[in-house]
């Protein structure tokens, strides 16, 4: 264990408290228009650079533990930042900066302007997501999950009553998940007498606690068959909210599954049960992809794709190994970037054509080729096409399955990339179709898009593709401080 050096010591609290203080300021000054517009963007740009020294510190010195208020577990709560946490924090800050920029760019258009409540909830949610990445205490995680879920529900209803039913459904699922998770926390405390992840890893947990915690997190992560709330909620939410929900909120729960299964839970289930968990995950991949192939609305295609893409997380317990760990970690990262880019680009499309039925996309290429390109580049990463980050993740997963002697998962992962390619291509195909149904009017509406609204998803998509080229240092970073290491 390494005492935090200077940089993490102030960077870690800043990542949590700066957005939360920002939320407070926005709440206190709801009528100060420039502040409402600028604060999310500025905070995003301030916090993003913190990731560089933090990532460097973790890559060089290993995981960082920070005891809040100087009280170590079991008395106090600890934050624990290893390579995986750095990747998730990096994803959070990147998407937050992009979403901040998007909100800033959309501000001049009255119809796209976010309300003060939206800004407050977003900043609160963002701070909680960062804390969730670092927290090393089961109950602390429970509290943060609640903040994240409630913030997410409010973001869904961000604009109008149309999304109300979807938001209520989301709330119901989220609360059910919370209750089951809380049950798991109680069982864990009964088993081990502590809730600190560090101490639990040594003590070990009984199967009931592990099952309850896993099930609760599966609700939150919308893993099949507990995904029922996601497509409607993510499709009905305002553009920026969809991006955040799909890229970060469900991701946080998936991240926790990954984290817990890597040490605390390992060894508590039989291999047959682990295979069953993997079957559930890959069934979700298949189900989500097939549903995405059948949707007629663009945002619903993207939402079902989230259901599909998160299923890969459940492969980790079965494949347990360094390559699988790297693969899933990079997959979460690349999916977050690509998905946020896709939702923001889809939002732009909706502004231009007032609708997101795939049938109405014909000729879109002519007016919104930039947004279409963003969608295609992000989709390339989702489908695991080289050289995007999704490809490297897929490669590692396939290799991990081959090395583990579970060749059926190698075939399943390779084949599931085809399904993802299928639903991405289906959208592009609709946009390239002619004769194009476009009159001049949408061309004018397309001019309503400010440059920042296109630049934000463009940078995210570029990052999703370019990270594939950075795999040489992302892989080792993901392993820093984890229970796995690559054989030389």
């Amino acid at each position, binding site marked *: 264990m390494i005492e935090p050096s200077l940089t993490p010591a102030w960077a870690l609290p800043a990542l949590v408290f700066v957005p939360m203080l920002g939320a407070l300021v926005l709440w206190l000054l709801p009528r100060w228009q420039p502040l409402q517009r600028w604060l999310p963007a500025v905070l995003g740009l301030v916090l993003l650079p913190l990731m560089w020294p933090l990532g460097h510190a973790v890559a060089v010195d290993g995981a960082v533990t920070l005891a809040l208020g100087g009280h170590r577990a079991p008395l106090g709560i600890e934050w624990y930042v290893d390579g995986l946490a750095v990747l998730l924090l990096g994803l959070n800050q990147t998407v937050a900066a992009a979403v901040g920029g998007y909100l800033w760019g959309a501000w001049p258009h009255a119809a796209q302007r976010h309300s003060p409540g939206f800004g407050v909830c977003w900043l609160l949610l963002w701070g909680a997501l960062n804390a969730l990445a670092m927290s090393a205490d089961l109950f602390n995680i429970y509290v943060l999950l609640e903040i994240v879920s409630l913030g997410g529900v409010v973001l869904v209803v961000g604009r109008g009553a149309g999304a109300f039913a979807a938001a209520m459904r989301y709330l119901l699922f989220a609360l059910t998940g919370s209750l089951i998770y809380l049950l798991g926390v109680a069982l864990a405390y009964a088993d081990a007498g502590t809730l600190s992840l560090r101490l639990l890893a040594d003590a070990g947990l009984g199967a009931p606690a592990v099952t309850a915690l896993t099930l609760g997190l599966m609700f939150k992560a919308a893993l099949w068959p507990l995904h029922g709330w996601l497509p409607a909620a993510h499709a009905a939410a305002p553009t920026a909210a969809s991006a955040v929900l799909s890229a970060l909120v469900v991701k946080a729960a998936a991240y926790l599954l990954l984290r817990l299964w890597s040490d605390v839970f390992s060894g508590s289930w039989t291999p047959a049960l682990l295979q069953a968990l993997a079957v559930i995950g890959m069934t979700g991949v298949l189900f989500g992809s097939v549903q995405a192939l059948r949707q007629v609305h663009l945002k619903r295609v993207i939402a079902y794709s989230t259901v599909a893409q998160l299923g890969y997380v459940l492969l980790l317990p079965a494949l347990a190994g360094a390559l699988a760990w790297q693969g899933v970690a990079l997959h979460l990262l690349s999916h977050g970037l690509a998905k946020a880019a896709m939702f923001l680009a889809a939002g732009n499309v909706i502004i231009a054509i007032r609708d997101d039925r795939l049938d109405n996309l014909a000729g879109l290429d002519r007016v919104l080729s930039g947004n279409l390109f963003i969608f295609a580049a992000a989709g390339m990463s989702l489908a695991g096409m*080289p050289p995007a980050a999704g490809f490297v993740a897929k490669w590692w997963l396939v290799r991990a399955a081959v090395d583990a002697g579970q060749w059926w998962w190698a075939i399943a992962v390779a084949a599931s990339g085809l399904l993802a390619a299928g639903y991405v291509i289906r959208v592009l195909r609709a946009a390239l179709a002619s004769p194009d149904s476009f009159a001049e009017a949408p061309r004018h509406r397309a001019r309503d898009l400010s440059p920042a609204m296109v630049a934000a998803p463009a940078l995210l998509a570029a990052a999703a593709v370019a990270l594939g080229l950075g795999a040489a240092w992302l892989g080792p970073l993901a392993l820093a401080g984890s229970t796995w290491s690559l054989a030389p």
Partner: protein
Amino acid sequence: MTAYAALPLWLVLTSLVAAALIFALGEARRRARTVVNLGAAALKLVLVGVILDGVAAGHLFSVRLPLMPGFDLVLRADALTMLLSTLSAVLWLITTVYAIGYLEHSPHRCRFFGFFSLCVAATTGVAVAGNLFTFFVFYELLTLATWPLVVHRGTAAALAAGDVYLRYTLGGGALLLLGVVGLHAVAGPGDFTAGGFVPVDAAPAWLLTLLFLVMFVGMGVKAAVVPMHGWLPRAMVAPAPVSALLHAVAVVKAGAFGIVRLTYDVYGLSLVAALGVGLAVAAVAALTILYGSLRALTATDLKQRLAWSTVSQVSYILLGVGLGNPLASVGGLVHLVHQGLMKITLFFCAGAFAEVAGVKRVDELDGMGRRMPLTMAAFTVAALGMIGLPPLAGFVSKWYLGLGGLAAGQPWVVAVLVASTLLNAAYFLPMLRRAWFNSDGGAVEVREAPLALLAPTLIAAALALGAGLLAAMPWSPLQWVTLIAERVYLLAPPS
């Protein structure tokens, strides 16, 4: 790493940067786009010339970029590389000229030329790839870059053809991925090495055979080997320059080239012979040659007939490779260039017939010899070459293939070649007879294609003619291929 040794990287970047610039320029900046297009193509040709000279002199060109732990993106140029990259560089330039003329007034030219350049970048990447991993990266990129070109017109038929294309090629890509990862697991990462890098005892023979076949099928999809050929005739809805490029250099050649690499530089000839998979490749190729020719006989659409002809002709390359002796290799590899030159001429002509005279079907060719004499002359040269009339290019390929078949103790190869030649004659000669000797009844008005279409066609025809007539001259495709065969077989004598 000197700039000279890094030339393969620059070779890929010329097309890649051209693609990025073209996308950035947008639809309206027509002149700037043309300058970028032709400038990059010309620059690439110069680079190819420099590398050709260096490779002939035995210089090493290699760039290694670490991509992930244990994996490097290796770009390098050896004699085999230059066979494909020279062909693609030459044909990129003339096809670009043709495409600029062909798409004069149609929409979406920015998209078209951008992906066109991307396609060439991917093909060059396939050629300069120095290991299977790098090969796979560019192979998949090629699939994606080609799709917008296939569906370019956006009609229902084009979109349907695009779907079929992707179903086949992405499926093949997934198989290839499994094969490559599997081989990596048993034999470790290895750069392409003359004579192969997979040790005989890396894994049980059945596993090595299985992995070979999985990768063969994955690559065979692009090479349109029967029964994975279904996408190629359908992809004919694409604009003529795309068909020309797909058939002559880009997609089908990437598949065939991959199989050549797999045989020579991954498994190596001795292991391929020991596993007995070489003959399997040759047998599948022979089947494809005959089946493609038979289907070409019954096709009534001109481009369809040419497409089936491609299915048949590309497998000549695989036949030569599968037989695994020097003479057959020369015949197969030289056909990679010969078929490219002849087929691009034929597609240029077909495009000109459709654009200028509205002729799309074989039975509409009556009198074309008088209406468009120069274009038809080019068509005739290429068609006769395809049939294999001595001393044209197709004959050179078939001659070496036949000799190779006999040397390998497989006399059935000669029978396949004779049958294929007869079938080729049976579907090409009636077209020539119609064009030159039938009259379409109306008044004959000579109306040649515009210069932008005609000049590339004539240049391609001249190259196809020269490749055969001047086969014995230095720097001819045949001489270059002989150099490759010498290097392959000197380093790795077949067991």
